[in-house]
C-alpha cells in the first residue's frame, strides 16, 4: 500500500452552467498522510471538488496536483462513492478484480477479510446488507493500493450504528496504511470521529470559512470527545 501523497489545489475558476462554484483564490493544500474532512451545505461544491481531484472533471482553470502531478497522471486514488456502486452481476471478489487486473483472487480475499467479509467472497451485492456493500466498496478502493483515499459521504443512507462501525473500520484502515484521505461529509460527527483537519466550505463561489485541526489522535477519541467535537463543529455552522 502506497504511503500518503500531498495534494495542492489552486482553482482560478470552476463554473457549472455559467455559475462559478470555485473562483480565484480558492487554495487548499493537504499534507501527505493527512485526513481532511470537507464539510458544508449541499450544493456548495464538495462533490465537484472531489471530481476535480480524481480527474473525472477537468473543465476548470487552475492547478491541481496530486504528489506533484495532474490527477490523470497521478497514481489511481481509491474512491468510495456515496452509493456503493458495486457491479450487481459480479461477486464481492469480482468487484475488486474488475477494476484491477493485477489484483489476484487471494489478495482480493485478504482485503475482503480485512473488512470483515470473510465467507462472503462469492456473494453477489444483492445478497449483502447496505453496510456490507459499503465495506466491499472500501475494499475495492483499497485494492489499488492508493496513496489517496477519497470518501464521498460514505455513511449516507445507513443507520447510525452501522455508520459508527464503518467509521471505526475506516479509522483502522487509515492508521494501518497512512494514506492521505479526503472525506466529504455533511455530518460533523463523521469529521469529529475521523479527521485530523476540518475544512468548511460556504458560499458561491465556495470559500473556506473554517480550517482547523483536531489535535487529539484518532485512537484517543472516545464517544464523549466525539460528541463534544461534533457539537463544536456543528456550532460553527452558519445558521
Amino acid at each position, binding site marked *: 500500500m502506497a504511503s500518503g501523497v500531498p495534494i495542492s489545489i489552486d482553482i482560478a475558476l470552476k463554473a457549472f452552467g455559467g455559475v462559478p462554484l470555485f473562483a480565484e483564490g480558492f487554495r487548499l493544500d493537504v499534507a501527505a498522510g493527512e485526513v481532511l474532512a470537507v464539510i458544508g451545505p449541499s450544493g456548495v461544491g464538495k462533490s465537484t471538488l472531489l471530481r476535480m481531484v480524481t480527474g*473525472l472533471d477537468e473543465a476548470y482553470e487552475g492547478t491541481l496536483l496530486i504528489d506533484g502531478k495532474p490527477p490523470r497522471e497521478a497514481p489511481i486514488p481509491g474512491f468510495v462513492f456515496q452509493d456503493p*456502486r458495486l*457491479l450487481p452481476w459480479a461477486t464481492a471478489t469480482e468487484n475488486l478484480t474488475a477494476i484491477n487486473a493485477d489484483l489476484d483472487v487471494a489478495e482480493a480475499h485478504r482485503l475482503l477479510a480485512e473488512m470483515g467479509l470473510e465467507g462472503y*467472497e462469492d456473494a*453477489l451485492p444483492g445478497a449483502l446488507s447496505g453496510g456490507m456493500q459499503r465495506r466491499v466498496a472500501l475494499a475495492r478502493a483499497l485494492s489499488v493500493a492508493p496513496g489517496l483515499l477519497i470518501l464521498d459521504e460514505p455513511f449516507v443512507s445507513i443507520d447510525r450504528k452501522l455508520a459508527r462501525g464503518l467509521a471505526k473500520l475506516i479509522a483502522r484502515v487509515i492508521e494501518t496504511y497512512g494514506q492521505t484521505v479526503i472525506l466529504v461529509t455533511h455530518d460533523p460527527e463523521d469529521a469529529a470521529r475521523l479527521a485530523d483537519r476540518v475544512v468548511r466550505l460556504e458560499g458561491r463561489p465556495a470559500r473556506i470559512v473554517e480550517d482547523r485541526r483536531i489535535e487529539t489522535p484518532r485512537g484517543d477519541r472516545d464517544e464523549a470527545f466525539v460528541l463534544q467535537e461534533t457539537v463544536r463543529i456543528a456550532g460553527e455552522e452558519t445558521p
Partner: protein
Amino acid sequence: MVPGKTPPPRVAGGLEWFSLPLLLVLWHLLAVIVDHRLFPTPVEVVGEVWFLATERSLIEDVAKTLSRAAAAFVVAMVLGAVLGAIFGRVRAADRLFGSWVLIGLNIPAIVVAITCYIWLGLSEFALILAVVINKTPLVTVTMREGVRALDHGFGELATLYRVPFWRRLRRFTLPQLMPYALTAARTGLSLIWKIVLVFEVLGSDGGVGFRIGIFFQNFDISGILAYTMAFMAVVFLIEYAVMRRLEAKVLGWRPAFQSR
C-alpha cells in the same frame, strides 16, 4: 451454502412441465370429438413425423431451414448490435438514420422478400438477405435502448480506476447489455423462423416452408402438422438447451430472475 450466496435460480417451475402435455391432451380430445381426416390426433401426427423422418426428407428440410435461420440470425444480431450501439451513442447518427430504422421495422416482410427475389433471383443469398433486412431493425432498436440505458455511474467508476477498454467492455458494459441482447435474440429467433418459412414457401429449393407449401397444394394436413411439430421440437430444444441456460448464466444475478 456460502453465507450470502444467492441460491441458484429456479429456471423452470413445476407447473411448466405440465404445459405441453396439457396442450397435447386438449388437442387429442378435440381431434377425437371433431373426428375428421383434416384434424388428425397428435398420435397420428407423431406417426407421420416418424414416417417423414425415416422415409422422406424431413431431417434434411429441417436442417436446411435451420441453417438459413442461423445464418440470418447471426448476421442480423451482429449488424443490429453494432448499429444499435452507434445509434445509442451518437445522437446525430440516430437522428439521421432513425427514419430508416422506422421504415425497416414497418415494411412488410413479403415486400422485402419479393424485391430481393426479383433483384437477386431465387437464391440462398436473396433469402437470407431478405430475412436479415427484416430482422436487423428490431435488434437495432432493442440494442439502442440498451446502450442508452447504460449506467453512467459504472462508466464513471471504470474511468476513475482507468480500466482498459476491452476489460471495461467485458466487465462493465456487456453485462448491462445482456438483457437487451437476450430480448433481441429471443424475439429475433421467433421472428426469423416465421419469416424464413414464408420466404421458403415463396421460393426455395427445399426447407420446412418449401415442403409445407407442397403439402398445402395437396391438402395434406398431417404432413403440415408433422413438419410443424418437428420444427417446434427443435425450437423447444433451443429454448431449453441454449436460451434458458444462457439466461441463467448471464441474468442469474437479477432479482427479477431469481424470483422466477
